[in-house]
């Protein structure tokens, strides 16, 4: 064996590896290879020394926010059926400013005057979805959500049927859908629950309720009393007003075309927070808008200014006005398809949950 053949084994010795006897014999008797070994070892030690200096540098403190509801949630109806509280849009913006940097939900103790149950519905290891039900306002006593459970697409609708002291009676309907691939993922309607049987449960906030979804697994429901109906139950409690990295936040958007209001999605909200994710918004007569912070082929580039998104499309100047700052970035890309029509009910707006941009594009293409 010569030095060239032994060189790789010299390196392997630095890693604590055993080497063939013939290589070991050569290295033991060769001054050049031993020099090489010593130099490799010295370089390793110098790297660790220099790295130790690097690691002394200060770490940015982080706040680990409670996890938000996850992707596949999709609403297909306006607020009349989704049970998101209605209030003046201007008041919302002013309210947020008055609250400073956080939106808070006030918890109340059991046996107090709390009239709203905040539910956290968990689908296995996934992040819980927050839903709010009122015990005093029947219009706000029903919620629904859609999402993946054990790799199966499920929907559930929860009705607050009554209250007995600190307990509430919940009526739960569930539905299992085909896997969300391509066009099959496009329609999840509240009307889907109409033919489904309803199971009733007594639930006491503070305890845990398990709801079996036949053929898919189980939902875990926890909850607590609050003193009011939160503006956006699906958003995380104590959420910062300042968007996080890669976050695209669309909250209660109003759409203006050439300075005229052409769409009002009061109460609809979605947060996408992965770089490759986007959000799709649909307004009747205006078509679909896929929004992403990353470039999309065929998309127009828009400008973000706090809670406004400005862009030009189809010869018109559009503005999305939203209730919260949209993103850290000032650039956004919008794929506008004025010919898009939603499937079963073309009269209602919808906003998707966060989804991969490519899935949104597939979804849109499937409806062409």
């Amino acid at each position, binding site marked *: 064996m010569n030095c060239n053949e032994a060189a790789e084994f010299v390196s392997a010795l630095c890693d604590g*590896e055993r080497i063939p006897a013939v290589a070991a014999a050569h290295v033991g008797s060769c001054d050049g290879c031993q020099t090489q070994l010593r130099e490799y070892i010295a*370089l390793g030690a110098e790297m660790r020394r*220099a790295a130790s200096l*690097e*690691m002394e540098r200060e770490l940015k403190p982080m706040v680990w926010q409670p996890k938000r509801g996850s992707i596949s949630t999709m609403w297909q109806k306006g607020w009349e059926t989704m049970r998101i509280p209605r209030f003046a849009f201007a008041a919302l913006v002013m309210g947020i400013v008055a609250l400073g940097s956080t939106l808070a939900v006030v918890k109340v103790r059991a046996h107090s005057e709390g009239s709203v149950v905040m539910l956290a519905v968990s689908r296995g290891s996934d*992040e819980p979805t927050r839903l709010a039900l009122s015990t005093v306002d029947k219009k706000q006593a029903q919620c629904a959500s859609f999402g993946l459970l054990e790799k199966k697409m499920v929907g559930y609708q929860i009705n607050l049927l009554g209250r007995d002291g600190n307990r509430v009676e919940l009526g739960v309907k569930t539905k299992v859908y085909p896997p969300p691939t391509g066009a099959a993922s496009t329609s999840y309607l509240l009307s889907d629950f109409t033919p489904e049987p309803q199971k009733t449960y007594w639930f006491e906030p503070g305890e845990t309720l398990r709801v079996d979804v036949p053929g898919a697994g189980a939902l875990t429901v926890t909850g607590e009393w609050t003193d009011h109906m939160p503006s956006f139950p699906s958003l995380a409690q104590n959420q910062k007003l300042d968007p*996080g990295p890669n976050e695209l936040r669309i909250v209660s958007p109003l759409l203006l075309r050439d300075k005229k209001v052409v769409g009002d999605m009061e109460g609809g909200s979605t947060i996408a927070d992965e770089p490759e994710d986007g959000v799709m918004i649909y307004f009747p007569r205006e078509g679909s808008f896929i929004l992403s912070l990353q470039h999309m082929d065929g998309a127009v580039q828009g400008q973000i200014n706090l809670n406004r998104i400005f862009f030009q499309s189809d010869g018109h100047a559009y503005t999305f006005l939203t209730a919260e700052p949209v993103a850290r970035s000032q650039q956004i890309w919008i794929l506008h398809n004025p010919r898009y029509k939603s499937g079963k009910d073309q009269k209602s707006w919808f906003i998707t949950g966060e989804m991969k941009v490519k899935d949104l594009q597939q979804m849109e293409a499937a409806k062409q």
Partner: protein
Amino acid sequence: MDDQEVWKKISQGDARAFDTFYRESAPRLQAFLRQIVGSREAAEDLTQESYLQLWKGPNGYQPERGSLRGYLYGVGRKRAAEWWRKRSPSAEAAEEPIEAGRAESSSVMMDALQRLPEEQRSLLWLREVEGQSYAELAEILGIPIGTVRSRLFTAREALRQVWQAGPRRNQ
């Protein structure tokens, strides 16, 4: 706490346990990423993004494929590659060694490392500083385990050449 325990707590949304894990392990990832991107600020952002990814999607980690820290190094490296792609006009630019003097480093060794291609830098750092095994290196860098030894040799030899050729100074 071992990886399994940490991961279980993260999966349960235990923010306190995750913060402890972050404080203990993030400086190492940050130092590693700084060698890849050459910018302290970018390395800080990429470190945060990597930990956020784990916090928000702990199921991306598969215990049977290696250590949790090894997984984070893989995530960080991919994000660094993405960072380079966005920054460079072409993907190939990310494979080129960083220009001398471009990195924000005052260390002779760090400067020497910056003269190596990214994969060699990563390989040497993960082996010499982080003590990752050949199997973990293969997983993090996405290369066959059979080639780890030869690539480590190539990287060591490249560093030795740069080290011998470059100026040495006391820090």
